[in-house]
């Protein structure tokens, strides 16, 4: 178990190295940072001098090593626009994004399992056909369109939910302010969460349904029937556990992907998270902030995947973590 953990951590470090290299390489291709820093009115000599001071004339390797060294100490550069450390800017926005992802994850987990299981057990009912039809629609419509439609229907036409912002948030700790305490906070997070879940949820319903249908054809399910086990126990103990094993692996990757999808959802709902921040940073050519965002998102991706792999090992008895480390 410990050996496996060490191995996974080393893999994670290798992945982070590649991510940092790519993110840093982007930096040099996003235009001249001096234009953003000093504007038009500064002479060429002064610019050259500033370039030397900022180390922009050093070789790529020197610049990368300096960047990586700083990054390891938690310094991902200073945002040109906010004039603060980029990491601080992101950390302020991170809780809003994570809460949004958490809300969407709750919706996905809470709905995909019952819907997936139902459509697998009763594939021929009208309800199943409707669910499967809607899931195709859900996968096909881009997130921003779903979000705008939801605002149009639920905010503008019916006025049930607010259309933008986080509403009443309660300060918890550090930069963390939460939506999940006040009624107003809940009202604000519901629409964005559903919008964010709109692609993943149908994907998971279909995935669970397909896996479940396959498992229901297996010999061990037939054997359980031959033993006289009750249907609900066959579905939820014998079949579901085997169904969820592959789903967990895919799920881990998708949680990471959702963090990235927040860019669209947050922009439409004016959600003050790091996806919205990233889009603004791109508009302002705020290179350090863009690079810092890519690294933080990459980091979240790597961490969730590592955790998911460890959970998979714990859930699946045929995976021997101790042996895999060797």
């Amino acid at each position, binding site marked *: 178990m410990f050996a496996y953990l060490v191995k996974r951590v080393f893999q994670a470090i290798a992945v982070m190295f590649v991510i940092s290299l790519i993110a840093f390489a982007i930096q040099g291709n996003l235009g001249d940072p001096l234009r953003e820093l000093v504007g038009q009115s500064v002479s060429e000599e002064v610019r050259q001098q500033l370039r030397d001071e900022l180390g922009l004339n050093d070789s790529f390797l020197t610049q990368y090593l300096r960047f990586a060294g700083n990054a390891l100490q938690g310094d991902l550069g200073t945002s040109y626009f906010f004039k603060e450390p980029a990491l601080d800017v992101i950390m302020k926005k991170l809780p809003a994004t994570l809460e949004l992802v958490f809300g969407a994850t709750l919706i996905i987990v809470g709905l995909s399992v019952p819907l997936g299981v139902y459509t697998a057990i009763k594939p021929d009912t009208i309800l199943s056909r409707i669910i499967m039809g809607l899931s195709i629609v859900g996968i096909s419509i881009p997130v921003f369109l779903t979000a705008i439609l939801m605002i149009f229907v639920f905010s503008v036409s019916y006025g049930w939910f607010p259309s933008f912002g986080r509403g009443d948030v309660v300060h918890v700790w550090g930069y963390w302010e939460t939506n999940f305490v006040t009624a107003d906070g809940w009202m604000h997070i519901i629409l964005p969460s559903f919008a964010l879940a709109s692609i993943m949820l149908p994907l998971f319903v279909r995935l669970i349904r397909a896996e479940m249908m396959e498992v229901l054809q297996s010999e061990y399910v*037939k054997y359980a029937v031959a033993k*006289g086990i009750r249907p609900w126990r066959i579905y939820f103990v014998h079949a579901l556990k085997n169904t969820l094993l592959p789903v967990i692996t895919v799920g881990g990757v998708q949680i990471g992907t959702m963090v990235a999808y927040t860019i669209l959802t947050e922009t439409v709902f004016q959600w003050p998270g790091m996806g919205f921040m990233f889009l603004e940073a791109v508009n302002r050519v705020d290179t350090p902030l863009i690079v810092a965002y890519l690294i933080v998102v990459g980091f979240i991706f790597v961490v969730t995947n590592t955790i998911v792999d460890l959970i998979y090992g714990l859930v699946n008895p*045929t995976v021997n973590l101790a042996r895999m480390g060797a």
Partner: protein
Amino acid sequence: MSLLSVRDLTVKFAMRDETVTALNGISFDVAKGERLGIVGESGAGKSITGFSLMNLISRPGYVDRGEILLDGEDVVKMNDKRLRQLRGDKMAMIFQDPMVTLNPVLTIGQQMIETLLAHRKLSREEARQIAIVKLREVYIPSPEDRLDQYPHELSGGMRQRIIIAIALLLDPELIIADEPTTALDVTIQADIMELLLELCQSNKVGLILITHDLGVVSQMTERTLVMYAGRIIEAGRTREIINDPQHPYTQGLINALPQQTLPGHKLRQIPGNMPSLTNIPPGCPFNPRCEYATDLCRSKLPEVIQYGEVQVACHEVERLHAEGARQEQNA
């Protein structure tokens, strides 16, 4: 009264273009504690017979007509609740491949205890104790530890022993074993069969043994059904069928046994293959492979007749018998 009485059982499969008849008017009985063998090549309908006794035929298959009376109750017409009560309790089944029969994510103990709890009002601890006793009966070493293990930690032979133990958990009256050793190493096949025979005899359990191996049938069973293309073509006491087979197909099966051939000689196989269910020849389904076939065989389906001690479905049985007797005299 017999324990199990199958009458005119017909099972069909609704395929996309046509409906295929997999079992065609099967009738047989199993007395209490009797051991019956069902033999035939792949595709003869042996396994479908076994599964339909438990009403485990699933779509697109269905029982078209006939009845399966278990102690006078018709399994075909039973509702789900009553079926659930019978399955695993009065009738238990042993599947073919122990590597895929047990659920990989549940421990041996969970899979045994759930079976007991599905049928009896017991505490978990009581169920656990029964499971340990049954594991000991099938010679599983240190059964207490096995209960907490997962199937993948055990060998194929060990798993099949556990499946036999599960079949015996609720002291059933009938066990249906569908080629229980086909997926196992040759070295342990005999062990498993011996164990199954021993337990059926000591517990007075009826057994339906589905196999393609006539050698196994002769050791294990009292009566035998020979199936071909979804029909029973010969039935009777195992000793008679092995020693004096009447149907040319049964004779072919026995001649094909390796024991019937001298070392170094080619095995005497039956020429040709079992016809596909979508393309069964007119007349006797065996006629294209039968060296004695006449025009009558190619046009009219033979009825099952009583011939001596056995029932057989063959037009030419009298002639074959006479020829067989003449050959013996000449020899």
